[in-house]
Protein backbone atom coordinates (compact mmCIF):
# COMPACT_ATOMS: atom_id res chain seq x y z
CA UNK A 1 0.00 0.00 0.00
CA UNK A 2 2.59 2.62 0.90
CA UNK A 3 5.50 1.53 -1.27
CA UNK A 4 7.99 4.07 -2.46
CA UNK A 5 7.31 5.16 -6.03
CA UNK A 6 10.96 4.86 -7.16
CA UNK A 7 11.17 1.37 -5.77
CA UNK A 8 7.92 0.51 -7.52
CA UNK A 9 9.04 1.79 -10.91
CA UNK A 10 12.23 -0.28 -10.64
CA UNK A 11 10.32 -3.44 -9.70
CA UNK A 12 10.44 -6.03 -12.52
CA UNK A 13 7.08 -7.52 -11.54
CA UNK A 14 5.46 -4.08 -11.68
CA UNK A 15 7.01 -3.43 -15.09
CA UNK A 16 5.58 -6.71 -16.36
CA UNK A 17 2.14 -5.73 -15.08
CA UNK A 18 2.42 -2.37 -16.85
CA UNK A 19 3.42 -4.07 -20.11
CA UNK A 20 0.38 -6.31 -19.83
CA UNK A 21 -1.93 -3.38 -19.08
CA UNK A 22 -0.65 -1.42 -22.08
CA UNK A 23 -1.58 -4.30 -24.37
CA UNK A 24 -4.97 -4.98 -22.83
CA UNK A 25 -7.16 -2.63 -24.89
CA UNK A 26 -7.40 -1.90 -28.63
CA UNK A 27 -5.48 1.34 -28.02
CA UNK A 28 -2.77 1.81 -25.38
CA UNK A 29 -4.14 5.06 -23.95
CA UNK A 30 -7.21 3.18 -22.70
CA UNK A 31 -4.96 1.60 -20.07
CA UNK A 32 -4.40 4.93 -18.30
CA UNK A 33 -7.09 4.58 -15.66
CA UNK A 34 -6.09 0.97 -14.94
CA UNK A 35 -2.45 2.03 -14.56
CA UNK A 36 -3.40 4.83 -12.19
CA UNK A 37 -5.50 2.41 -10.14
CA UNK A 38 -2.50 0.10 -9.85
CA UNK A 39 -0.18 2.87 -8.72
CA UNK A 40 -2.80 4.17 -6.31
CA UNK A 41 -3.18 0.76 -4.68
CA UNK A 42 0.59 0.20 -4.45
CA UNK A 43 1.73 3.63 -3.29
CA UNK A 44 -1.42 5.35 -2.03
CA UNK A 45 -1.28 8.10 -4.67
CA UNK A 46 -0.49 9.02 -8.26
CA UNK A 47 2.14 11.73 -7.87
CA UNK A 48 4.21 13.61 -10.45
CA UNK A 49 6.80 10.89 -10.83
CA UNK A 50 4.28 8.28 -11.82
CA UNK A 51 2.42 10.74 -14.00
CA UNK A 52 5.61 11.37 -15.95
CA UNK A 53 6.38 7.67 -16.24
CA UNK A 54 2.91 6.66 -17.43
CA UNK A 55 2.66 9.61 -19.84
CA UNK A 56 5.82 8.36 -21.58
CA UNK A 57 4.74 4.75 -21.47
CA UNK A 58 1.30 5.29 -23.04
CA UNK A 59 2.25 8.20 -25.27
CA UNK A 60 -0.09 10.68 -23.58
CA UNK A 61 0.91 14.32 -22.86
CA UNK A 62 1.89 14.87 -19.21
CA UNK A 63 -0.63 17.64 -18.82
CA UNK A 64 -3.41 15.29 -19.94
CA UNK A 65 -2.35 12.70 -17.40
CA UNK A 66 -2.43 15.34 -14.68
CA UNK A 67 -5.83 16.41 -15.95
CA UNK A 68 -7.07 12.86 -15.56
CA UNK A 69 -5.57 12.33 -12.10
CA UNK A 70 -7.21 15.50 -10.82
CA UNK A 71 -10.58 14.79 -12.49
CA UNK A 72 -11.34 11.45 -10.86
CA UNK A 73 -12.23 11.18 -7.21
CA UNK A 74 -10.35 7.91 -6.70
CA UNK A 75 -6.93 9.29 -7.70
CA UNK A 76 -4.82 11.42 -5.37
CA UNK A 77 -1.76 13.47 -6.17
CA UNK A 78 -0.60 13.46 -2.55
CA UNK A 79 -0.28 10.36 -0.38
CA UNK A 80 -3.25 9.59 1.83
CA UNK A 81 -3.56 7.35 4.84
CA UNK A 82 -2.98 3.62 4.72
CA UNK A 83 -6.72 3.10 4.97
CA UNK A 84 -9.03 5.30 2.97
CA UNK A 85 -12.38 5.39 4.75
CA UNK A 86 -15.06 6.39 2.22
CA UNK A 87 -18.44 7.10 3.77
CA UNK A 88 -21.45 7.45 1.49
CA UNK A 89 -23.38 10.63 2.18
CA UNK A 90 -26.02 10.55 -0.59
CA UNK A 91 -29.77 10.61 0.11
CA UNK A 92 -30.52 6.85 0.39
CA UNK A 93 -27.69 6.37 2.89
CA UNK A 94 -28.66 9.60 4.65
CA UNK A 95 -32.16 8.15 5.12
CA UNK A 96 -30.57 5.05 6.62
CA UNK A 97 -28.53 7.07 9.12
CA UNK A 98 -25.28 8.02 7.36
CA UNK A 99 -25.05 11.36 9.18
CA UNK A 100 -25.09 9.65 12.56
CA UNK A 101 -22.48 7.19 11.36
CA UNK A 102 -20.26 9.92 9.93
CA UNK A 103 -20.40 11.93 13.17
CA UNK A 104 -19.36 8.85 15.05
CA UNK A 105 -16.46 8.14 12.69
CA UNK A 106 -15.23 11.74 12.91
CA UNK A 107 -15.24 11.44 16.69
CA UNK A 108 -13.63 8.03 16.71
CA UNK A 109 -10.80 8.95 14.36
CA UNK A 110 -10.51 12.54 15.59
CA UNK A 111 -10.59 13.97 12.06
CA UNK A 112 -13.03 15.70 9.72
CA UNK A 113 -13.77 14.51 6.17
CA UNK A 114 -10.69 15.24 4.08
CA UNK A 115 -8.41 14.74 7.08
CA UNK A 116 -5.77 12.11 7.85
CA UNK A 117 -4.96 10.79 11.31
CA UNK A 118 -1.60 11.87 12.72
CA UNK A 119 -0.18 8.36 12.48
CA UNK A 120 -1.04 8.28 8.77
CA UNK A 121 -3.26 5.27 9.23
CA UNK A 122 -6.65 6.65 8.22
CA UNK A 123 -7.86 9.21 5.72
CA UNK A 124 -11.57 10.00 5.96
CA UNK A 125 -13.57 11.13 2.95
CA UNK A 126 -17.24 11.34 2.07
CA UNK A 127 -18.29 9.83 -1.24
CA UNK A 128 -21.45 9.75 -3.30
CA UNK A 129 -23.86 6.85 -3.79
CA UNK A 130 -22.10 3.46 -3.76
CA UNK A 131 -25.01 1.59 -5.40
CA UNK A 132 -26.07 -0.51 -2.43
CA UNK A 133 -28.89 1.80 -1.38
CA UNK A 134 -31.05 -0.98 0.11
CA UNK A 135 -28.39 -1.85 2.66
CA UNK A 136 -27.19 1.54 3.90
CA UNK A 137 -25.43 3.16 5.59
CA UNK A 138 -22.52 2.07 3.42
CA UNK A 139 -18.85 2.75 3.45
CA UNK A 140 -15.71 1.42 1.83
CA UNK A 141 -12.32 1.00 3.43
CA UNK A 142 -9.87 0.82 0.55
CA UNK A 143 -11.45 -1.82 -1.72
CA UNK A 144 -13.72 -3.44 0.84
CA UNK A 145 -17.41 -2.57 1.07
CA UNK A 146 -19.31 -2.53 4.35
CA UNK A 147 -23.09 -2.15 4.38
CA UNK A 148 -25.72 -1.67 7.04
CA UNK A 149 -22.96 -0.61 9.35
CA UNK A 150 -23.59 0.67 12.88
CA UNK A 151 -21.25 2.88 14.90
CA UNK A 152 -20.28 -0.16 16.99
CA UNK A 153 -19.80 -2.15 13.82
CA UNK A 154 -17.38 0.46 12.54
CA UNK A 155 -15.34 0.35 15.74
CA UNK A 156 -15.07 -3.40 15.39
CA UNK A 157 -14.00 -3.22 11.77
CA UNK A 158 -11.17 -0.77 12.37
CA UNK A 159 -9.99 -2.65 15.44
CA UNK A 160 -9.26 -5.59 13.19
CA UNK A 161 -7.16 -3.52 10.75
CA UNK A 162 -3.46 -3.51 11.50
Amino acid at each position, binding site marked *: MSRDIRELLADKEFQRKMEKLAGLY*PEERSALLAALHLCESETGCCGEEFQEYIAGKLGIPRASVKGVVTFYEMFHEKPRGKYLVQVCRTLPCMLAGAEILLDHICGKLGIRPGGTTKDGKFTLVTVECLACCDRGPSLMINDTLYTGITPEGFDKVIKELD
Partner: protein
Amino acid sequence: MAGELKVLTANLGMKGTTEIDAVMRRGAYEALIKAMTRMTPDQVLGEVKAANLKGRGGAGFPAGLKWSFLPKGKDKTRYLVCNADESEPGTFKDRLLIENDPHKVLEGIIIAGYATQSAGCFIYIRGEMPQGARVLQRAVNQAYDRHFLGKNILGSGLDFDIWVARGAGAYICGEETALMNSLEGKRGEPRIKPPFPAGYGVYGKPSNINNVETYANVPAIIEKGADWYNSIGSADTPGTRLFGVCGHVKNPGLFELPSTVTLRELIYGHAGGILGDRKLKAVIPGGSSVPVLRADQIDVTMDSAGLKAVGSMPGSGGVIVMNDSVCMVRALHNLMRFYAHESCGQCTPCREGTHWLELLSGAIERGEGREGDADKILSLSKNIMGRTICPLGDAAAMPAESFVRQFREEFEFHIREKRCLPETMRMTTIYSA
Protein backbone atom coordinates in the same frame (compact mmCIF):
# COMPACT_ATOMS: atom_id res chain seq x y z
CA MET B 1 -50.71 -7.90 -5.93
CA ALA B 2 -48.73 -9.33 -8.84
CA GLY B 3 -45.90 -11.61 -7.75
CA GLU B 4 -42.31 -11.41 -8.79
CA LEU B 5 -41.41 -12.83 -12.16
CA LYS B 6 -37.82 -13.99 -12.26
CA VAL B 7 -36.33 -13.73 -15.70
CA LEU B 8 -33.24 -11.58 -15.18
CA THR B 9 -32.85 -12.59 -11.56
CA ALA B 10 -33.56 -16.32 -11.96
CA ASN B 11 -30.02 -17.15 -10.84
CA LEU B 12 -29.77 -14.62 -8.02
CA GLY B 13 -29.56 -16.25 -4.65
CA MET B 14 -28.35 -19.57 -6.14
CA LYS B 15 -24.89 -20.89 -5.38
CA GLY B 16 -21.98 -20.71 -7.77
CA THR B 17 -23.72 -18.62 -10.41
CA THR B 18 -20.58 -16.68 -11.25
CA GLU B 19 -19.13 -19.92 -12.66
CA ILE B 20 -19.81 -20.76 -16.28
CA ASP B 21 -20.34 -24.49 -15.68
CA ALA B 22 -22.95 -23.89 -13.02
CA VAL B 23 -24.97 -21.43 -15.09
CA MET B 24 -24.69 -23.50 -18.25
CA ARG B 25 -26.38 -26.33 -16.43
CA ARG B 26 -29.19 -23.83 -15.89
CA GLY B 27 -29.41 -22.88 -19.56
CA ALA B 28 -26.93 -20.05 -19.90
CA TYR B 29 -25.55 -19.42 -23.41
CA GLU B 30 -28.34 -21.47 -25.03
CA ALA B 31 -29.82 -18.28 -26.49
CA LEU B 32 -26.40 -17.35 -27.85
CA ILE B 33 -26.06 -20.76 -29.48
CA LYS B 34 -29.55 -20.43 -30.94
CA ALA B 35 -28.83 -16.94 -32.31
CA MET B 36 -25.49 -17.82 -33.82
CA THR B 37 -26.36 -21.18 -35.31
CA ARG B 38 -29.99 -20.82 -36.31
CA MET B 39 -30.54 -17.09 -36.94
CA THR B 40 -28.98 -14.44 -39.15
CA PRO B 41 -27.76 -11.20 -37.55
CA ASP B 42 -30.73 -9.39 -39.11
CA GLN B 43 -33.18 -11.90 -37.65
CA VAL B 44 -31.69 -11.33 -34.19
CA LEU B 45 -31.93 -7.58 -34.66
CA GLY B 46 -35.51 -7.97 -35.90
CA GLU B 47 -36.49 -9.99 -32.85
CA VAL B 48 -35.06 -7.43 -30.42
CA LYS B 49 -36.79 -4.63 -32.33
CA ALA B 50 -40.09 -6.51 -32.29
CA ALA B 51 -39.68 -7.09 -28.55
CA ASN B 52 -39.59 -3.31 -28.08
CA LEU B 53 -36.89 -3.68 -25.44
CA LYS B 54 -36.50 -0.29 -23.76
CA GLY B 55 -33.14 0.91 -22.44
CA ARG B 56 -32.84 0.47 -18.69
CA GLY B 57 -30.16 3.10 -18.09
CA GLY B 58 -32.58 5.94 -17.55
CA ALA B 59 -33.83 7.32 -20.85
CA GLY B 60 -35.80 4.29 -22.06
CA PHE B 61 -34.72 4.43 -25.70
CA PRO B 62 -35.65 1.31 -27.74
CA ALA B 63 -32.55 -0.89 -27.88
CA GLY B 64 -33.22 -2.60 -31.21
CA LEU B 65 -33.73 0.75 -32.90
CA LYS B 66 -30.47 2.05 -31.42
CA TRP B 67 -28.59 -1.00 -32.69
CA SER B 68 -29.97 -0.40 -36.18
CA PHE B 69 -28.41 3.09 -36.23
CA LEU B 70 -24.93 1.57 -36.48
CA PRO B 71 -23.65 1.80 -40.04
CA LYS B 72 -23.39 -1.58 -41.71
CA GLY B 73 -20.59 -3.03 -43.83
CA LYS B 74 -17.51 -5.18 -43.42
CA ASP B 75 -15.15 -2.24 -43.87
CA LYS B 76 -16.37 -0.59 -40.65
CA THR B 77 -15.16 -1.34 -37.13
CA ARG B 78 -18.10 -1.13 -34.75
CA TYR B 79 -17.89 -1.27 -30.97
CA LEU B 80 -20.40 -2.00 -28.28
CA VAL B 81 -20.23 -0.47 -24.83
CA CYS B 82 -21.88 -1.80 -21.71
CA ASN B 83 -22.63 0.93 -19.22
CA ALA B 84 -21.93 -0.49 -15.75
CA ASP B 85 -21.13 2.84 -14.17
CA GLU B 86 -24.23 2.61 -11.97
CA SER B 87 -24.06 5.72 -9.79
CA GLU B 88 -27.55 7.20 -9.96
CA PRO B 89 -28.57 7.64 -6.32
CA GLY B 90 -31.13 4.99 -5.39
CA THR B 91 -30.07 2.57 -8.13
CA PHE B 92 -28.44 -0.76 -7.28
CA LYS B 93 -29.58 -3.29 -9.86
CA ASP B 94 -26.57 -3.52 -12.16
CA ARG B 95 -24.25 -4.24 -9.25
CA LEU B 96 -26.41 -7.21 -8.26
CA LEU B 97 -26.59 -8.56 -11.81
CA ILE B 98 -22.85 -8.28 -12.33
CA GLU B 99 -21.78 -9.64 -8.99
CA ASN B 100 -24.25 -12.54 -9.07
CA ASP B 101 -24.92 -13.48 -12.68
CA PRO B 102 -22.22 -11.98 -14.91
CA HIS B 103 -22.73 -14.57 -17.65
CA LYS B 104 -26.28 -13.38 -18.29
CA VAL B 105 -24.87 -9.94 -19.08
CA LEU B 106 -22.06 -11.36 -21.21
CA GLU B 107 -24.45 -13.56 -23.16
CA GLY B 108 -26.66 -10.56 -23.97
CA ILE B 109 -23.64 -8.54 -25.06
CA ILE B 110 -22.30 -11.26 -27.35
CA ILE B 111 -25.73 -11.70 -28.96
CA ALA B 112 -25.84 -7.93 -29.52
CA GLY B 113 -22.34 -8.17 -30.97
CA TYR B 114 -23.57 -10.80 -33.42
CA ALA B 115 -26.66 -8.80 -34.39
CA THR B 116 -24.59 -5.68 -35.05
CA GLN B 117 -21.47 -7.53 -36.32
CA SER B 118 -19.29 -5.56 -33.92
CA ALA B 119 -15.62 -6.07 -33.11
CA GLY B 120 -16.03 -6.16 -29.37
CA CYS B 121 -17.51 -4.59 -26.27
CA PHE B 122 -16.09 -2.42 -23.54
CA ILE B 123 -17.70 -3.00 -20.18
CA TYR B 124 -17.15 0.17 -18.18
CA ILE B 125 -17.68 -0.62 -14.53
CA ARG B 126 -17.53 2.04 -11.88
CA GLY B 127 -14.31 2.28 -9.92
CA GLU B 128 -16.00 1.71 -6.59
CA MET B 129 -16.98 -1.83 -7.61
CA PRO B 130 -13.64 -3.67 -7.61
CA GLN B 131 -15.38 -6.89 -6.66
CA GLY B 132 -17.73 -6.62 -9.64
CA ALA B 133 -14.76 -5.94 -11.93
CA ARG B 134 -13.02 -9.09 -10.69
CA VAL B 135 -16.15 -11.21 -11.12
CA LEU B 136 -16.67 -9.84 -14.63
CA GLN B 137 -13.07 -10.39 -15.71
CA ARG B 138 -13.19 -13.95 -14.45
CA ALA B 139 -16.46 -14.57 -16.28
CA VAL B 140 -14.97 -13.07 -19.47
CA ASN B 141 -11.96 -15.40 -19.19
CA GLN B 142 -14.29 -18.39 -18.79
CA ALA B 143 -16.26 -17.31 -21.86
CA TYR B 144 -13.02 -17.17 -23.87
CA ASP B 145 -12.13 -20.67 -22.67
CA ARG B 146 -15.47 -21.91 -23.96
CA HIS B 147 -14.98 -20.06 -27.28
CA PHE B 148 -18.03 -17.87 -26.69
CA LEU B 149 -15.52 -15.04 -27.16
CA GLY B 150 -12.57 -14.75 -29.51
CA LYS B 151 -12.24 -15.74 -33.14
CA ASN B 152 -15.02 -17.23 -35.27
CA ILE B 153 -17.38 -17.80 -32.35
CA LEU B 154 -19.44 -20.99 -32.81
CA GLY B 155 -18.44 -21.06 -36.45
CA SER B 156 -20.50 -17.93 -37.13
CA GLY B 157 -17.59 -16.01 -38.61
CA LEU B 158 -17.81 -13.38 -35.86
CA ASP B 159 -14.63 -12.33 -34.06
CA PHE B 160 -15.65 -10.63 -30.84
CA ASP B 161 -13.75 -9.51 -27.73
CA ILE B 162 -14.80 -8.08 -24.39
CA TRP B 163 -12.65 -5.64 -22.47
CA VAL B 164 -13.41 -4.76 -18.85
CA ALA B 165 -12.46 -1.21 -17.90
CA ARG B 166 -12.79 0.44 -14.50
CA GLY B 167 -13.95 3.97 -13.85
CA ALA B 168 -12.48 5.99 -11.03
CA GLY B 169 -15.18 7.81 -9.13
CA ALA B 170 -17.17 10.23 -11.30
CA TYR B 171 -20.95 10.09 -11.70
CA ILE B 172 -20.70 11.97 -14.95
CA CYS B 173 -18.87 9.02 -16.55
CA GLY B 174 -22.25 7.27 -16.68
CA GLU B 175 -23.24 9.74 -19.39
CA GLU B 176 -22.53 7.91 -22.62
CA THR B 177 -20.07 10.25 -24.28
CA ALA B 178 -18.24 11.09 -21.04
CA LEU B 179 -17.90 7.35 -20.59
CA MET B 180 -16.35 7.02 -24.04
CA ASN B 181 -13.84 9.76 -23.28
CA SER B 182 -13.01 7.99 -20.04
CA LEU B 183 -12.50 4.72 -21.95
CA GLU B 184 -9.99 6.57 -24.10
CA GLY B 185 -8.00 7.54 -21.01
CA LYS B 186 -9.36 11.08 -20.86
CA ARG B 187 -11.21 13.26 -18.38
CA GLY B 188 -14.85 12.21 -18.25
CA GLU B 189 -16.30 15.25 -19.95
CA PRO B 190 -19.39 14.73 -22.11
CA ARG B 191 -19.01 15.39 -25.82
CA ILE B 192 -21.20 17.73 -27.79
CA LYS B 193 -23.81 15.81 -29.80
CA PRO B 194 -24.11 15.41 -32.73
CA PRO B 195 -22.13 13.48 -33.74
CA PHE B 196 -23.88 10.67 -31.89
CA PRO B 197 -22.07 7.53 -30.73
CA ALA B 198 -23.63 5.49 -33.56
CA GLY B 199 -21.47 7.50 -35.96
CA TYR B 200 -18.62 8.64 -33.73
CA GLY B 201 -18.10 6.67 -30.53
CA VAL B 202 -15.10 5.01 -28.88
CA TYR B 203 -11.90 6.00 -30.76
CA GLY B 204 -14.19 7.82 -33.17
CA LYS B 205 -15.64 4.50 -34.38
CA PRO B 206 -19.38 3.76 -34.66
CA SER B 207 -20.48 2.58 -31.21
CA ASN B 208 -23.61 1.41 -29.46
CA ILE B 209 -24.04 1.84 -25.73
CA ASN B 210 -26.54 0.09 -23.49
CA ASN B 211 -27.07 -0.38 -19.81
CA VAL B 212 -26.21 -3.68 -18.06
CA GLU B 213 -29.85 -4.59 -17.50
CA THR B 214 -30.71 -3.82 -21.13
CA TYR B 215 -28.18 -6.36 -22.37
CA ALA B 216 -29.29 -8.85 -19.72
CA ASN B 217 -32.78 -8.83 -21.26
CA VAL B 218 -31.54 -10.03 -24.64
CA PRO B 219 -31.00 -13.78 -23.99
CA ALA B 220 -34.60 -14.35 -22.87
CA ILE B 221 -35.93 -12.41 -25.87
CA ILE B 222 -33.96 -14.63 -28.25
CA GLU B 223 -34.80 -17.80 -26.36
CA LYS B 224 -38.54 -17.20 -25.95
CA GLY B 225 -39.29 -14.68 -28.69
CA ALA B 226 -40.66 -11.17 -28.99
CA ASP B 227 -44.29 -12.26 -28.61
CA TRP B 228 -43.59 -13.82 -25.24
CA TYR B 229 -41.69 -10.68 -24.20
CA ASN B 230 -44.56 -8.42 -25.24
CA SER B 231 -47.02 -10.54 -23.29
CA ILE B 232 -45.32 -9.38 -20.08
CA GLY B 233 -45.33 -5.88 -18.70
CA SER B 234 -47.01 -2.88 -20.22
CA ALA B 235 -47.30 -1.63 -23.79
CA ASP B 236 -44.67 1.07 -23.39
CA THR B 237 -42.28 -1.02 -21.31
CA PRO B 238 -42.63 -4.73 -22.06
CA GLY B 239 -40.79 -7.44 -20.16
CA THR B 240 -39.82 -7.33 -16.53
CA ARG B 241 -37.94 -4.53 -14.82
CA LEU B 242 -35.61 -4.48 -11.87
CA PHE B 243 -36.99 -2.13 -9.26
CA GLY B 244 -34.75 -1.29 -6.35
CA VAL B 245 -36.61 0.03 -3.33
CA CYS B 246 -34.64 1.84 -0.64
CA GLY B 247 -35.12 4.42 2.08
CA HIS B 248 -37.89 4.21 4.64
CA VAL B 249 -39.39 0.80 3.89
CA LYS B 250 -39.38 -2.31 6.06
CA ASN B 251 -38.11 -4.65 3.39
CA PRO B 252 -35.79 -2.78 1.05
CA GLY B 253 -34.30 -4.64 -1.88
CA LEU B 254 -34.46 -5.52 -5.54
CA PHE B 255 -37.72 -6.76 -7.07
CA GLU B 256 -38.16 -8.04 -10.60
CA LEU B 257 -41.65 -7.18 -11.78
CA PRO B 258 -43.62 -6.24 -14.86
CA SER B 259 -44.01 -2.47 -15.16
CA THR B 260 -47.74 -2.92 -14.64
CA VAL B 261 -47.05 -3.09 -10.91
CA THR B 262 -48.23 0.03 -9.13
CA LEU B 263 -45.99 2.19 -7.00
CA ARG B 264 -48.30 1.46 -4.07
CA GLU B 265 -47.92 -2.31 -4.51
CA LEU B 266 -44.18 -1.91 -4.75
CA ILE B 267 -43.90 0.13 -1.55
CA TYR B 268 -46.58 -1.46 0.62
CA GLY B 269 -46.55 -4.97 -0.83
CA HIS B 270 -43.12 -5.99 -2.00
CA ALA B 271 -41.12 -3.63 0.16
CA GLY B 272 -43.22 -4.30 3.26
CA GLY B 273 -44.58 -0.80 3.96
CA ILE B 274 -43.18 2.22 5.71
CA LEU B 275 -40.34 2.01 8.20
CA GLY B 276 -41.18 3.09 11.72
CA ASP B 277 -44.89 2.59 10.91
CA ARG B 278 -45.11 6.23 10.00
CA LYS B 279 -46.82 7.91 7.13
CA LEU B 280 -45.43 7.95 3.61
CA LYS B 281 -44.44 11.46 2.66
CA ALA B 282 -42.60 11.37 -0.63
CA VAL B 283 -41.15 8.99 -3.15
CA ILE B 284 -38.66 9.41 -5.98
CA PRO B 285 -39.72 6.66 -8.39
CA GLY B 286 -36.79 6.28 -10.81
CA GLY B 287 -33.43 7.33 -9.39
CA SER B 288 -32.64 10.74 -7.91
CA SER B 289 -32.85 12.57 -11.25
CA VAL B 290 -36.60 12.19 -11.78
CA PRO B 291 -39.34 14.38 -10.29
CA VAL B 292 -40.45 13.52 -6.75
CA LEU B 293 -44.01 12.35 -6.00
CA ARG B 294 -46.26 12.95 -3.02
CA ALA B 295 -47.94 10.21 -0.99
CA ASP B 296 -51.24 10.70 -2.83
CA GLN B 297 -49.66 10.03 -6.23
CA ILE B 298 -48.64 6.40 -5.85
CA ASP B 299 -51.65 4.69 -7.43
CA VAL B 300 -49.96 4.57 -10.81
CA THR B 301 -48.24 1.86 -12.80
CA MET B 302 -44.45 1.90 -12.94
CA ASP B 303 -44.22 2.30 -16.71
CA SER B 304 -43.72 5.49 -18.69
CA ALA B 305 -47.42 6.18 -19.16
CA GLY B 306 -48.27 5.63 -15.49
CA LEU B 307 -45.53 7.81 -14.09
CA LYS B 308 -45.95 10.46 -16.76
CA ALA B 309 -49.55 10.91 -15.64
CA VAL B 310 -48.25 12.19 -12.30
CA GLY B 311 -45.39 14.19 -13.79
CA SER B 312 -42.50 11.80 -13.28
CA MET B 313 -40.72 8.99 -15.14
CA PRO B 314 -39.39 5.45 -14.63
CA GLY B 315 -35.72 6.47 -15.03
CA SER B 316 -33.35 3.83 -13.73
CA GLY B 317 -35.86 1.95 -11.58
CA GLY B 318 -34.49 3.13 -8.23
CA VAL B 319 -37.32 3.95 -5.83
CA ILE B 320 -36.37 6.16 -2.87
CA VAL B 321 -39.04 6.19 -0.17
CA MET B 322 -39.28 8.89 2.49
CA ASN B 323 -41.56 8.83 5.51
CA ASP B 324 -42.97 11.90 7.28
CA SER B 325 -39.89 12.29 9.45
CA VAL B 326 -37.90 13.55 6.45
CA CYS B 327 -37.35 17.25 5.96
CA MET B 328 -37.80 17.84 2.24
CA VAL B 329 -35.51 20.88 2.28
CA ARG B 330 -32.74 18.80 3.76
CA ALA B 331 -33.38 15.98 1.26
CA LEU B 332 -33.21 18.44 -1.63
CA HIS B 333 -30.04 19.99 -0.25
CA ASN B 334 -28.44 16.55 -0.09
CA LEU B 335 -29.30 15.92 -3.75
CA MET B 336 -28.18 19.35 -4.92
CA ARG B 337 -24.84 18.88 -3.19
CA PHE B 338 -24.53 15.64 -5.15
CA TYR B 339 -25.18 17.28 -8.53
CA ALA B 340 -23.00 20.29 -7.80
CA HIS B 341 -20.20 17.92 -6.82
CA GLU B 342 -20.65 15.79 -9.93
CA SER B 343 -21.08 18.53 -12.55
CA CYS B 344 -18.07 18.34 -14.87
CA GLY B 345 -18.09 22.12 -15.16
CA GLN B 346 -18.12 22.50 -18.95
CA CYS B 347 -21.43 24.37 -19.21
CA THR B 348 -22.12 27.52 -17.26
CA PRO B 349 -25.82 26.85 -16.54
CA CYS B 350 -25.00 23.47 -15.02
CA ARG B 351 -21.77 24.40 -13.21
CA GLU B 352 -23.15 27.62 -11.72
CA GLY B 353 -26.76 26.53 -11.50
CA THR B 354 -26.14 23.36 -9.49
CA HIS B 355 -23.81 25.31 -7.22
CA TRP B 356 -26.50 27.94 -6.55
CA LEU B 357 -29.14 25.28 -6.02
CA GLU B 358 -26.92 23.70 -3.40
CA LEU B 359 -26.27 27.06 -1.70
CA LEU B 360 -29.92 28.13 -1.76
CA SER B 361 -31.34 24.86 -0.46
CA GLY B 362 -28.61 24.80 2.18
CA ALA B 363 -29.42 28.33 3.31
CA ILE B 364 -33.14 27.59 3.58
CA GLU B 365 -32.37 24.41 5.51
CA ARG B 366 -30.17 26.30 8.00
CA GLY B 367 -32.89 28.88 8.58
CA GLU B 368 -31.14 31.55 6.53
CA GLY B 369 -33.61 31.49 3.66
CA ARG B 370 -35.18 34.71 2.46
CA GLU B 371 -38.57 35.42 1.03
CA GLY B 372 -38.62 34.59 -2.63
CA ASP B 373 -35.97 31.88 -2.34
CA ALA B 374 -38.41 29.13 -3.30
CA ASP B 375 -39.17 30.99 -6.51
CA LYS B 376 -35.46 31.45 -7.05
CA ILE B 377 -35.04 27.68 -7.02
CA LEU B 378 -37.78 27.39 -9.61
CA SER B 379 -36.27 30.01 -11.89
CA LEU B 380 -32.76 28.57 -11.53
CA SER B 381 -34.09 25.14 -12.51
CA LYS B 382 -35.90 26.59 -15.47
CA ASN B 383 -32.75 28.30 -16.66
CA ILE B 384 -30.71 25.10 -16.52
CA MET B 385 -33.23 22.89 -18.33
CA GLY B 386 -32.31 22.21 -21.94
CA ARG B 387 -29.37 24.61 -21.96
CA THR B 388 -26.50 22.21 -21.40
CA ILE B 389 -24.28 19.76 -23.29
CA CYS B 390 -25.47 16.69 -21.42
CA PRO B 391 -28.58 15.85 -19.38
CA LEU B 392 -26.87 16.21 -15.98
CA GLY B 393 -28.13 19.76 -15.81
CA ASP B 394 -31.71 18.60 -16.32
CA ALA B 395 -31.11 15.75 -13.88
CA ALA B 396 -30.47 18.33 -11.17
CA ALA B 397 -33.17 20.74 -12.27
CA MET B 398 -35.98 18.17 -12.27
CA PRO B 399 -35.71 17.21 -8.62
CA ALA B 400 -35.16 20.86 -7.63
CA GLU B 401 -38.23 22.08 -9.46
CA SER B 402 -40.40 19.20 -8.28
CA PHE B 403 -39.38 19.35 -4.61
CA VAL B 404 -40.41 23.00 -4.44
CA ARG B 405 -43.57 22.51 -6.51
CA GLN B 406 -44.73 19.46 -4.53
CA PHE B 407 -43.69 20.62 -1.05
CA ARG B 408 -43.96 24.36 -1.42
CA GLU B 409 -45.51 24.89 2.03
CA GLU B 410 -42.63 23.16 3.73
CA PHE B 411 -40.10 25.37 1.94
CA GLU B 412 -42.11 28.47 2.87
CA PHE B 413 -42.38 27.28 6.49
CA HIS B 414 -38.59 26.98 6.63
CA ILE B 415 -38.10 30.44 5.21
CA ARG B 416 -40.72 32.00 7.51
CA GLU B 417 -40.06 30.11 10.76
CA LYS B 418 -36.35 29.43 10.23
CA ARG B 419 -36.71 25.84 11.31
CA CYS B 420 -37.88 22.40 10.25
CA LEU B 421 -41.46 21.14 10.55
CA PRO B 422 -41.86 19.67 14.06
CA GLU B 423 -42.35 16.09 12.86
CA THR B 424 -39.09 16.22 10.90
CA MET B 425 -36.87 17.12 13.83
CA ARG B 426 -35.80 13.50 14.32
CA MET B 427 -35.53 11.52 11.12
CA THR B 428 -36.16 7.77 11.13
CA THR B 429 -32.99 5.78 10.43
CA ILE B 430 -32.18 2.07 10.57
CA TYR B 431 -30.74 2.76 14.01
CA SER B 432 -33.97 4.22 15.38
CA ALA B 433 -36.55 2.02 13.66
